C-alpha cells in the first residue's frame, strides 16, 4: 500500500525526520489560508503515482491568491488516470542541493538496501549508475550510524551535513522496519540553509504486513472493479483487450495470456484465482468477469487440489445464474483430478471444454473473432 506524500511525511516527522511545514487542503480556500500561515508555498497534488511534477501537479504560489488559483487548477485534475482530491501546501524552500535517499530491499542479497545519490530531484532510474551509492544492510543489526556516515562521505558530504544525513537515514531505517515498508524514498532530500530535510517522501507498505499496521491510514489505487475482485483475495489487473481470462496461479495465468496473445487474442484482464483456491471464490470471480461484458471468456484450471468436477459445477452454476453470461462464449481448459467428470459436467451444460491449453486458446480467440495467422515457434 502506498501512502500519500502528506501521510508519509506525517510518519517521518513523528520519527524525528525534518520536513518542511505544510498543510493538507481539500479546497482552493484551504490553500489560500495555508499560504497566509506558511508564506509562499508549493501546492502539490496528492496522488499515488510518481512524476506529478512534470505532469503539472505541482505549482508554486507566492500569495494566498496564487495558492487559491493553483489549488483550483490542480484539484480535480486527472493525473495519469487518478483524480486529484487533495493538495498539500508546503512552505516554499530555498534549496541549495538536491540529494536522493531511499531504503528498499535487495532480492538477491535478501536484505535491506540503502540507495543514495548526490544527484537528487530526478527519477533515480535516470541517474547514472556511478553516481549512485548502494549499501546492503545486515538484517540482524540494521542500519548503524557509521554505515550511513560512510555513505554520506561517499556522496561527498562533510561536516554537519554528513552527520545530519547519517542521523536522518537511521531514523528512516527505523520507520522502514517498524512499518514493514517495501520502499521509503526521499527525493529530493534537500539541503536548505545548510541543513538536510525531506522535501518529498514516498512510503510503500508491504501489503502482506498490513494486518499488523491497523493504525495506518488506508489508501487504495485500485479501480472499483479491481477492488471488487481483490476483496475476494485474488490477484487482478485490468488490461486493454476484450477476452476475459482466469487461471489458477500467477505463472499459469501469465502463460495463458501469452498463449492467447500468440494466437491473436487481446486479454481484457489478468485474474489469478490462486493455486490452491477452492471452487467458491473462483466462481465469484468468474461472475465478476462475466459482468464486465467481454467478447469471450477463457478459464484455464489445472486441478491439483481442487477437484475438476467441483470446478466444473461452480462454472456451470455461475453461467446459469448470470444473465450476462449466457450470451458470452465460454471456453474452459480443465485438467487434473476427476478430469473426466469435470468435462462431462461442462459438456452437459454446453460449455466448450478442452484438455489442451493450445486448443482452448485457439478456440477462445476464434470465438472472439480475433484469430491471426500464427507463425509457429516465434
Amino acid at each position, binding site marked *: 500500500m502506498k501512502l500519500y506524500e502528506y501521510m508519509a511525511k506525517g510518519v517521518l516527522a513523528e520519527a524525528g525526520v525534518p520536513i518542511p511545514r505544510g498543510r493538507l487542503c481539500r479546497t482552493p480556500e484551504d490553500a489560500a489560508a495555508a499560504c497566509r500561515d506558511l508564506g509562499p508555498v508549493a501546492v502539490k497534488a496528492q496522488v499515488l503515482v510518481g512524476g506529478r511534477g512534470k505532469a503539472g501537479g505541482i505549482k508554486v504560489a507566492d500569495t494566498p491568491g496564487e495558492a487559491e488559483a493553483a489549488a483550483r487548477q490542480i484539484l480535480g485534475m486527472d493525473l495519469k488516470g487518478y483524480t486529484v482530491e487533495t493538495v498539500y501546501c508546503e512552505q516554499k524552500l530555498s534549496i541549495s542541493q538536491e540529494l536522493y535517499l531511499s531504503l528498499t*530491499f535487495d*532480492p*538477491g542479497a*535478501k*536484505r*535491506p538496501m540503502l540507495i543514495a545519490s548526490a544527484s537528487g530531484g530526478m527519477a533515480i*532510474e535516470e541517474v547514472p549508475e556511478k553516481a549512485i551509492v548502494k549499501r546492503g544492510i*545486515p*538484517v*540482524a543489526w540494521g542500519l548503524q550510524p557509521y554505515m550511513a556516515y560512510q555513505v554520506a562521505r561517499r556522496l561527498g558530504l562533510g561536516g554537519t551535513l554528513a552527520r545530519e544525513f547519517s542521523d536522518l537515514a537511521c531514523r528512516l531505517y527505523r520507520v522502514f*522496519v517498524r512499518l*514493514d515498508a*517495501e520502499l521509503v524514498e526521499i527525493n529530493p532530500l534537500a539541503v536548505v540553509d545548510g541543513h538536510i530535510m525531506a522535501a518529498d517522501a514516498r512510503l510503500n507498505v*508491504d501489503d*502482506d*504486513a498490513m*494486518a*499488523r499496521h491497523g493504525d495506518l491510514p488506508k489508501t487504495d489505487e485500485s479501480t472499483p472493479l479491481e477492488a471488487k475482485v481483490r476483496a475476494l483475495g485474488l*490477484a487482478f*489487473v485490468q*488490461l*486493454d483487450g476484450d477476452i476475459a481470462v482466469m*487461471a*489458477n*496461479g*500467477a*505463472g*499459469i*495465468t*501469465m*502463460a495463458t*495470456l*501469452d*498463449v*492467447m*496473445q*500468440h494466437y491473436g487474442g487481446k*486479454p481484457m484482464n*489478468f485474474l*489469478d484465482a490462486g*493455486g*490452491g483456491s477452492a471452487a467458491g471464490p473462483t466462481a465469484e470471480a468468474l461472475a465478476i468477469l462475466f459482468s464486465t461484458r467481454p467478447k469471450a471468456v477463457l478459464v484455464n484450471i*489445472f*486441478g*491439483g*487440489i481442487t477437484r475438476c468436477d467441483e470446478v466444473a459445477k461452480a462454472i456451470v452454476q455461475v453461467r446459469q445464474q448470470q444473465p450476462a453470461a449466457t450470451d458470452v462464449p465460454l471456453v474452459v481448459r480443465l*485438467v*487434473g*483430478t476427476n478430469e473426466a467428470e469435470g468435462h462431462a459436467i461442462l459438456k452437459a451444460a454446453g460449455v466448450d471444454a478442452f484438455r*489442451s*491449453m*493450445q486448443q482452448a486458446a485457439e478456440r477462445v480467440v476464434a470465438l472472439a473473432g480475433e484469430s491471426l495467422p500464427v507463425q509457429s*515457434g*516465434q
Partner: protein
Amino acid sequence: MSVLVDEKTRIVVTGATGRQGSFHLGQMLEFGTRVVAGVTPGRQGQEVSGVPVYDTVETAVEKHGANAAVVFVPGTLAKDSVMECIDAGVPLVVVVSEHVPLHDAMVINAFAAERGAMIVGPNTYGLCAPSARCKIGIPPNSIFQPGPVGVVARSGTLSYELVGSLTDAGLGQTTVVGMGGDRVAGLNFIDMLKRFERDPETKVVVLIGEIGGTAEEEAAEYVKGMSKPVVAYLAGKSAPPGKRMGHAGAIIERGRGTFESKVSALTAGGAKVAQLPWEVAPLVKEALKA
C-alpha cells in the same frame, strides 16, 4: 540419492492440524513421503492421518529425528514457525505459507544463513524427488514420474503444467523444486542449477521463469558454465510494463527483468528457450538425445 531430499528425509509438518496442513499431510503420505510428525501448539496428543502431533518442533525433532520441515501456518506466523524449525536443528525448511511479510522473509533468510539451514520459499509449492518417493509441499501427486530431468521454477501451477507435460511425454524427473513467487526467497535458481550440475542422475535441466526481478538473468550467467543442457520457459511475454501480475516479482520496472532481457540472457547462456508451454517437452527430448 536426490539433490535436496532422499529416502531418509523425515518430515515434520507445522500447521499440521489446519485445513491446508492436514490435507497435504495426507497427500504427502499417499505419495510415500515419510512424514513423521505434525506440530500445532496446543494440539499435542492428537493425530493427523495417523501422524502424531506435538506442541513444539523441538519435541517433534527429539522424538522422531525429523530432518526437514514444511510450514503451512498463516503468513504472518510463518517467521516464528520457520525460526522454530531452524532453531530445533532442521536443515531444510519448505515454506508453503503465502503472504509472508517481506521483512519477515528477510529475517528468516538471515537466521537460516547464520544457522546453516536451507529455506525453500516462502509461497512455494515445495519440492519432489519422484524416485525417492519424497514430496514436500502441495503439488498434485499425479504429475510426477522418476526420470532424468531436473526442474526448477518460480510459479506453482505453471510448474504442474510443464511437469505434467514432461511426464505425459515420458520424461520423468530427478527433482522438481519451486522457489516460490515472493520477492525475497530462500533457495534460488543458481543454488539448484549447481545441485543439478553435480547430480549424476540429472541429465537435463528445465528452468521455469517469469518476468520481473533479475533471477533469470543471474541464472543465465551460471548456465554458461554448465555441462548439462538447460531448457527454459518464461511466462509474461504479453504483460504490459508496470502492472503487477499476481506474483510480487512479476513487475516490470526500470527496463530490467523484461521478457526480452531474460530470453536473450538465457539464450546467450546456452539455454534453449521454449516460446510456448508445449514446446518444452520436445526440446527436453532433443537435449537428451544430443
